[in-house]
């Protein structure tokens, strides 16, 4: 193990995941096929894609939260928290989890232990990594509740999860994740289960905390509205591969991968009312039926013989990488906001 900062080109890089290949036990194909992600200080990276494309699996693999023995990693390197880990043989030490890399989940209603008070649960995260007494941990918990905008934090500390609303529980989850001032926050669809006003509040909160602490954020979502709202960079995933990534403006204004173009035109917009929304025909093939080469070619309207060979993720513009043989496209298919 060596210090990450020494060998990464940009000292602002907090987390660099490269070439993660993962396969579930009993399957013949890789679920994740060469996923790479980079998060810089103060940056929000959104990972988008439809259900089953491997967004959550990537996050779970990063945090080593996949059930033991359920998956094998055949390639992958993680450069984070000053550690350089070869994921095939090692995993993120539990001292890092919740300390320097934290994660929040999709379902705030079920992500808190119903048997203990809010204060106990946030305090537990503090005690685990920072030590100290229970009183100190509870003080820290109260401070965190205040910071995530919960009214009456002192009273809330001694309440149980079922006494809080969904939005409040998600705030508590965020407070718990951020209690140890992590450098990186992984948020797995943190707003999916919440209604729109609460969604906006939670996104504002994450953005404020990012501005305050300079933490890097990986936000997993399938909501392009959320992406437009909060992302600095976007990684579009399809079938366990990153097919396109780049600055948020590039991806929205100049999508190059046919899948990204499909996603963008399937999004309803206020300024451009059309009769019907475009759809991407078909569904994601199951892992067993994943085509060789470009994994999107069975649904792609532009697919040709050449697509039987896997396209490399290559740069077509500054801060814009695409994995398609036909990128950059000759025509501009802008679906600008």
């Amino acid at each position, binding site marked *: 193990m060596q210090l990450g900062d020494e060998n990464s080109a940009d000292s602002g890089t907090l987390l660099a995941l490269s070439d993660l290949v993962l396969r579930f036990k009993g399957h013949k194909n890789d679920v994740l096929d060469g996923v790479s992600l980079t998060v810089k200080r103060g940056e929000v990276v959104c990972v988008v894609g439809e259900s089953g494309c491997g967004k959550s699996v990537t996050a779970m693999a990063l945090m080593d939260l996949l059930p033991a023995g359920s998956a094998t990693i055949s390639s992958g390197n993680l450069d984070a928290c000053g550690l350089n880990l070869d994921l095939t043989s090692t995993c993120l030490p539990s001292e890092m*989890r919740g300390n320097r890399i934290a994660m929040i989940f999709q379902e705030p209603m079920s*992500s808190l232990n119903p048997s203990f008070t809010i204060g106990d649960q946030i305090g537990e*995260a503090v005690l*685990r990594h920072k030590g100290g007494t229970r009183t100190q941990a509870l003080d820290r918990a109260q401070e965190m509740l205040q910071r995530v905008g919960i009214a009456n934090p002192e009273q809330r500390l001694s309440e149980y999860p079922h*006494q809080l609303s969904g939005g409040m529980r998600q705030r508590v989850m965020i407070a*718990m994740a951020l209690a140890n001032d992590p450098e990186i926050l992984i948020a797995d669809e943190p707003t999916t289960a919440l209604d729109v006003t609460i969604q906006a509040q939670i996104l504002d909160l994450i953005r404020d905390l990012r501005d305050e602490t300079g933490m890097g954020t990986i936000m997993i979502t399938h909501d392009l509205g959320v992406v437009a709202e909060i992302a600095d960079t976007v990684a579009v995933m399809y079938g366990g591969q990153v097919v396109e990534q780049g600055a948020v403006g590039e991806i929205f204004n100049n999508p190059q991968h046919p899948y990204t173009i499909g996603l963008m035109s399937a999004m309803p917009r206020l300024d451009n009312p059309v009769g019907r929304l475009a759809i991407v025909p078909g569904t994601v093939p199951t892992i067993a039926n994943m085509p060789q080469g470009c994994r999107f070619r069975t649904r792609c309207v532009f697919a040709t013989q050449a697509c039987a060979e896997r396209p490399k993720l290559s740069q077509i513009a500054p801060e814009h990488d695409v994995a398609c043989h036909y990128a950059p496209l000759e025509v501009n298919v802008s679906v600008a906001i």
Partner: protein
Amino acid sequence: MTDAAVNQALNADPVLAATPENRVWKKFKRHKSAMVGGFLVAFFVIIALAAPILPIPDPSATDWGAVRKAPSWAHWMGTDEIGRDVMSRMIWGAQASLLAGVMSVGIALMLGVPLGIVAGYFGGWTDAVISRCTEALLAAPFLILAIALAAFLGPSLTNAMIAIGISATPIFIRLTRGQVINVKSEDYVDSALAIGLPTPKILSRYILPNVLPPILVQATLTIATAIIAEASLSFLGLGQQPPAPSWGSMLNTAKNFLNQAPWMAMWPGISIFLVVLGFNLLGDGLRDALDPREH
């Protein structure tokens, strides 16, 4: 409606006000048969605890002038074949029965819950070994297994408790394992892993408290079974040893005098019936009160 009533109606939030404890207690209080069970159990616990200070004769004191006497003012429940007071023996016998019930279930919980948690949480080979052993034990009927173990360990109340406890263990292993498999896929276990908590902490703080309610219900019901088992073992001479009183051994002696002195069998029989009924009603009530689906 008065102002105060309106105010109260507006401010009372039934959802926020109800903590799980008082919600369970409220449902339990409404459950009439559970309250009856609770009173029965409480009654026997109180007389068992108060036995030393109650104004009753020594349960082992014989009186050759009053052998097999029917209930009277001197002996409210009659006397047995060597002139011992049946009521005194019944009250002291409650100690043995309740102790056997509680201790053997305690043993079963102490063995069964940790094994069930380990089997359910870790799965794989650990689970396979523990589950196969559990099934092997479950294949033998509960009472037969208890009798065999008690006979093997030698006749005494302590050994009877151990034998009953071990016989009841597989039920708890199986119940706990099933609950753990349910709970370990809950999101809050993932979030505990995500804050880096070590496995022992996850088992004790996140798994155990959330699998406890059904185990508690099963434990209450098993106390009733264990009391019957203790009475059966004592009846067979494998439990409480004479002259110490026990309901089972009282029945054993009484069966020889059923025609001449039916009261010798009646009182311990009624006691066993009532205590077992009490624990069963209590267990049913707890099950309903802890069930989140019912209101």
